[in-house]
């Protein structure tokens, strides 16, 4: 019974997004940390994972949403800026990091709002 409350696609989707955002933050942090490491190749969420997440969110399929695992891979599209073979662009990483953090704020508020709605339904009180 109670599981149904937490298996709504929007709630599951927000949870998966939070997982993905946390993993992406770690990937971007590793990129910034290795901005000066020779031959380092920047990593990011795997394109295949992004595609799966988007299709699962679009189809609102609870089963596929709950089994998704975020993955990272080497960003093959990034090109080295100088001769040491490092593909990290510091400005680019920080912009992405800021967006990632902002998106994280949005998703935590979505989760909080979903829980507040549940509480409203249970108690009849908004607070």
């Amino acid at each position: 019974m109670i599981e149904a409350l937490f298996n709504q696609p929007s709630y599951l989707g927000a949870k998966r997004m939070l997982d993905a955002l946390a993993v992406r933050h770690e990937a971007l942090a590793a990129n910034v940390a290795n901005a000066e490491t020779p031959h380092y190749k920047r990593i990011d969420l795997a394109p295949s994972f992004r595609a799966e997440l988007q299709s699962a969110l679009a189809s609102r399929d609870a089963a596929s949403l709950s089994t998704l695992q975020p993955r990272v891979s080497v960003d093959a599209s990034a090109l080295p800026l100088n001769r040491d073979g490092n593909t990290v662009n510091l400005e680019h990483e920080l912009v992405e990091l800021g967006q990632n953090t902002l998106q994280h704020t949005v998703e935590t508020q979505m989760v909080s709002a979903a829980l507040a709605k549940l509480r409203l339904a249970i108690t009849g009180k908004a607070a």
Partner: protein
Amino acid sequence: MLNIIPSLASTTAALDAESTRLEVISQNIANANTTRGPDGRPYQRQEVVFENALQQAKAANGAAPGLVAPQVASIQKDPRPGRSVYQPGHPDADANGMVQFPNVDIYEEMADMIVASRTYEANLAVLKNGRSMALQDLSIGKH
């Protein structure tokens, strides 16, 4: 250990590595005019070499790449020759009155210093973002 803030390990490793680099740069600048070290020779410029704690070799084989932390591999001496200046009165002058000065170029060191301190700042920004994400996580369900 409870890991609340994501990415703490790689960021702290980077802060560590960058501050070592800043220390070496400041040592180079401080000794830009040291004509006699413990070995009796002019100071030689030193340089920090970075490497990954874990190489991304796994990624090349198709497995998921690990999150790698940078570290200082070694601090190497720069083999370039120093400049010689004609100063016959100098105690370290040779028979022709030439004094060997260190191979430190202040402009090069200043440029390196700016890169190192900007990278340090960038890592602090990452840490700040991670902290705010962790605080938001903790506030889920509160009003």
